């Protein structure tokens, strides 16, 4: 039986929204291909009735594997076994970092084709065809597979729909992990660096990137956010550099937001950032590089030096509000 297996990422007893979206996408695809969608959860010690809730999103079956969570290679072992034992030939991931790692390792293991950053998938003549933007989203390619397929979605490409099916049938699978799969050991997971800031509820976000030049220059964003009544967000580059808290990070391994106004200062607009903010109502970007990718998806682009523009913009907005 042809079928699609979806990896479900979870932490602290909660399933990841993008994994739920992937289940719904898989159910749709499986319907077109004439098979079933199933889900797999590795580790996390879930109760069967919680796992069965994945059925609502479209997983007819839920494979439960006990083992290390938060690492890729044990999940590769588990998925390879489940796919082989049950004759499944497509694996689907909702995106993120672990999805990339597991998907790539799985493709190597089961000798499948692998496509990442998928924004859509369809059945064409009984075979799966995946849509993938390439070269900084300047082109979209349709990818086909000979044999098995591993499809790793772009973050937020698949919407969860919990009205697809009934409770999933939970099946416990014992997996014997490879020696090398156990040679990475998670010491701490999901550490929040920096203070806990709330950017998800803000209508206005002023986001700062590496173009700010140094940590202290986040003050420029904070002042502008203060004047407009918004909050401050950041890119991974500046979070990794320790300039701003992780809780304020937008993108693939950060938050997804859709404020009324998103103003980017000194941000290049990398895909991994874009996936977390492209649904914003109004996107304004200030960047000194006229070729910065962010101008491709901003509603108002300003080519210039943020250090000169932002302070004056803050003053002008304060003056306007005071008037």
């Amino acid at each position, binding site marked *: 039986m042809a079928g699609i297996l979806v990896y479900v990422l979870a932490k602290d007893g909660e399933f990841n929204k993008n994994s739920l979206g992937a289940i719904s996408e898989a159910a749709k695809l499986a319907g077109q291909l004439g098979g079933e969608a199933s889900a797999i959860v590795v580790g996390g010690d879930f109760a069967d009735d919680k796992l069965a809730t994945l059925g609502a999103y479209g997983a007819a079956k839920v494979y439960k594997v006990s083992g290390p969570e938060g690492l890729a*290679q044990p999940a590769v072992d588990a998925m390879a076994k489940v796919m082989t034992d049950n004759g499944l030939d497509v694996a689907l991931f909702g995106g993120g*970092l672990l999805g*990339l790692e597991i998907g790539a390792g799985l493709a*190597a293991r089961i000798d499948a084709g*692998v496509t990442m950053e998928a924004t859509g998938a369809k059945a064409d003549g009984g075979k799966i065809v995946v849509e993938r933007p390439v070269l900084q989203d300047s082109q979209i390619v349709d990818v086909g597979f000979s044999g098995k397929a591993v499809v790793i979605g772009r973050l937020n490409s698949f919407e969860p729909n919990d009205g697809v099916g009934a409770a999933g049938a939970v099946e416990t699978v014992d997996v014997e992990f490879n020696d090398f799969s156990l040679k990475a050991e998670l010491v701490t997971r999901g550490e*929040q660096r920096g203070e806990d800031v709330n950017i998800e509820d803000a209508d206005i976000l002023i986001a700062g990137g590496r173009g700010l030049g140094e940590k202290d220059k986040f003050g420029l964003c904070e002042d502008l956010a203060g004047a407009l009544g918004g909050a401050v967000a950041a890119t991974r580059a500046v979070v990794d550099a320790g300039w701003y808290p992780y809780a304020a990070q937008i993108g693939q391994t950060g938050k997804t937001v859709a404020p009324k106004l998103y103003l980017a200062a000194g941000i290049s607009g990398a895909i991994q950032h874009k996936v977390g903010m492209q649904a914003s109502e*109004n996107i304004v970007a200030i960047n000194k590089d006229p070729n910065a990718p962010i101008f491709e998806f901003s509603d108002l682009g300003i080519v210039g030096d943020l250090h000169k523009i932002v302070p004056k913009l803050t003053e002008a907005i304060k003056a306007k509000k005071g008037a």
Partner: protein
Amino acid sequence: MKIAVLVKEVPDAAVEKRIDSGTKRLDRSGEKNLNPFDTHAIEAAMQLREGGAVQVDEIVAVTMGPESSKSALTKAVSLGADRSVQLTDDGLAGSDVNATGYALAKVLESESPDLVLLGQQSDDGECYAVGAVVADHLKMPSLTQVVKLEASGDTLTCERQAEYGYDTVKVTLPAVISVGDAINEPRYPSLKAIMGAKKKPLETKSAGDVGIDAGKVGESGSKTQVLGLNPPPQKASGELIADADDDIDGAVAKIVSWLDERKLI
């Protein structure tokens, strides 16, 4: 300890990248350069060597690519690698990411490194995947996007950002680690190093030399096929204030009225 660093030749950042509609492959005709993300992997190897916590006996740069990819190796050597290996073979052309990872794993097997380092992504392929593919073939533990790397004995302590925040992971060598671009600030090669790089050993190998199964590589051995090529959906292009620096006050006034019109102030 022996470190192998995977490096790739990619179109230079200044070249506008396009896909050839005939071959459906990347047009590689323009200026080329070492993948900028790989310079962080070389730098990470150098810092392990210079850090002194472990003894690094050798750093080998490894690439798979056409004849021209030698220049990426030379650049890698100027940045600190001791020697380099080029896997080049017409039969490898058109390999997808899984086939590329398999071929690279075969070359690496012939080198038996204790640590394989690579970049977070290739600037042209943007697959973020070669590390995990290589690791599965080599049966080694693996992590990607590592932004802090410490070695002690045969253990690496790695930090990286995943979906829920920062993870700290201990990995036992031999291992395959791809590093994020925040891990370090790559050095510039000295003039002496640039001059000397061409004199360091560069070994060229064919697919047969390293026991690659020809049926698993190249366009015919790849399990993915590019079926079609389309432009992205047309989006109404936004407004642009070019050269704002020439008239800051004017630009600011325009931004304010733009925001005001949309009731954002």
